C-alpha cells in the first residue's frame, strides 16, 4: 500500500487529502476532505490529472507577433511540456477566427489546439 497527498481545489478551504492506494493503483481510502465533491475530485486528480493548456504561437503574415491559443479540452498534465515543444513549431497564418483549429490532435491526445482570438492580417 502507498499513500498520496492531494490538495483539493474545489473551494477556498483547500483541504489536504491523503489517499491510501493499493499496489495495483486502486484508491482504497480518502481522508482529509470535508465534502463529497472534494473526495470525487481528489480521486480523479489522482487517477488522471488533466489541465487545459493556454499559451501563444508565433504568427506569420500578421501585424501581431503572437496568437493566443488553448487546448479544446484538458490534456494529461505530464504532457504539458512536450505540448509546448510542439507549439513552438507552429506558425499561425491569417485569416484565422477565434475557435478555429490551429493544430489538430495535439501529441495524439485527440485534443485540438484552437485560436482564442481572431488573427488580423
Amino acid at each position: 500500500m502507498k499513500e498520496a497527498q492531494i490538495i483539493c481545489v474545489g473551494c477556498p478551504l483547500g483541504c489536504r487529502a491523503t489517499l491510501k492506494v493499493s499496489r495495483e493503483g486502486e484508491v482504497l481510502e480518502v481522508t482529509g476532505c470535508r465534502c463529497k465533491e472534494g473526495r470525487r475530485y481528489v480521486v480523479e486528480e489522482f487517477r488522471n490529472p488533466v489541465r487545459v493548456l493556454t499559451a501563444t504561437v508565433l504568427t506569420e503574415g500578421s501585424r501581431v507577433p503572437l496568437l493566443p491559443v488553448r487546448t479544446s479540452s484538458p490534456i494529461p498534465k505530464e504532457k504539458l511540456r512536450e505540448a509546448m515543444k510542439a507549439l513552438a513549431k507552429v506558425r499561425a497564418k491569417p485569416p484565422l477566427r477565434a475557435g478555429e483549429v490551429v493544430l489538430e490532435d495535439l501529441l495524439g491526445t485527440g485534443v485540438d489546439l484552437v485560436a482564442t482570438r481572431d488573427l488580423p492580417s
Partner: protein
Amino acid sequence: MRLQGVDVAVIGAGPAGMAAAIRAKEAGAQRVLLVERQEELGGLLHQCIHNGFGLLYFGEDLTGPEYAKRFIDRVYDLGVETLLETTVLEISPERGIRVINKGGLQSFRPKAVVLAMGCRERTRDQLGIPGGRPAGIFTAGTAQRLVNVEGLLPGRRVVILGSGDVGMIMARRLTLEGARVEAVVEILPYVGGLIRNEVQCLHDFDIPLLLEHTVTEVHGERHLEGVTVAKVDPHRRPIPGTEIQIECDTLLLSVGLIPENELSRRAGVELDPLTGGPTVDQWRETTVPGVFAGGNVLHVHDLVDNCSWEAELAAEGAVRFAKGERTEGREICLRPGRNVRYVVPQRIRGEGPVTLFLRVREMEEGMRVRVGDLWQKRFRVVKPSEQIKVELSPKDLRRLPDGVAEIRVECEVAG
C-alpha cells in the same frame, strides 16, 4: 465624430466598460459612447490568455481573449459608438470631459458618465526595497504583456515577489516558456491567490513557495544579478540572520492592485481610503451627481465576471440619471465592522436591490458574515483573497426600521 448629445459616456473599454456600454444601450440610452486609449476594446483581458474567466457570467471556462470577444461583438452589434486610441484627460465636477487623440483635443458633456478605467499595479517605489536601480525588475502585469502580447521573455532566472493570482499565473507561464522560476516569495503565512492557482501554477511545476519571506535587497549595477530574501516575524519585519541569496536576472512584483483614481480625484468624487476607489451608492453613483463607476476602478475584484456585473449596475443607474429619473429616499451608511476590510457600496439610497461586495482582513475558519440584521451566512473559511458577494432584495431593505442611519457589516465567530 459628433460628441455633443451623448447620453452615457463610458471611460475605459475593459470588461467593466464594455459591459456598461452594452447595458446602457439595452436599457434604452440613445447614444452611448465608449472611450478607450488603446487601439482595441478589451482592456487587460488581451494579455490574460489563461482560462478561468466567465465561469459565473457565462457558465463556461473561457480565456481572457474569449471572454473579451463575447463583449466586443455585442458592443458593435448594438451600435455603441467607440472612440479608440483616445485618452480622457479630465472629467470636471460638472461632467465636462476632455479627450485627446490624433485629431487633437475635444470637450463634451454627456448626460451621465460611467468610470471604468480599471486599476494599476503597485510598484517597487511603493514597497521601498533597498538596492540600486538595475534593469530586470518588472511588475507582473508588465511581464504578462511582454510575454503574452509582444512575445518577449523578460529573463531566464526569475524570482516573483507576491503570491497573488497574477504572480502565480506568470510563474507557470514563464516556466512553460523555458525560464526558471527560482521562487515565489510571499510575506504572509498563506498564498495571496486562489488555491487552484497554487496547485496548478506552482505545485505542478515544483516551483518553490517561500511563505513568510520577503525580498530585502536587490543586487546588480546595470542589470539585476540577484536578490536577498529573508524570513519575516509576525509583524512582517525581516528577521536578521535568516537572509539567503538567490541568483536571478529578473524580479517580478505581484504585490497588489490599486484602483486607477487620477480622473476620479480630479472630478472631485469622494474616495474611500479602504478601497482606493470612489465611494458609491447601490447604483454605483459617486458623490458627483451623474458620475458612476464599476469594475476595478471602484475596488479590485478577483473575478472578472463581477467586474462586468457591477458595471451593468452602474450603467442602469447612468441611464436613469440621463433620463432625469432621480433615486431619492433615505440614506443609510454601510460600515465595515469586525474583520471586514471594506464594503462596497458605502451607502444605500432609497430602494433595493443592493449588490454588495466585501473583503475580510484576516483568514478565519467557522465564521458568520452579517449585514446588520438584514442578511447573514455561514462560511467554512473567509480569506482576504476571496471577495464575498451579497445580494439584498427590495424586500430585505423594507424590513429596516425607520430612522436607521447605519448598518454594520461584520464577520463574527459562528456559534
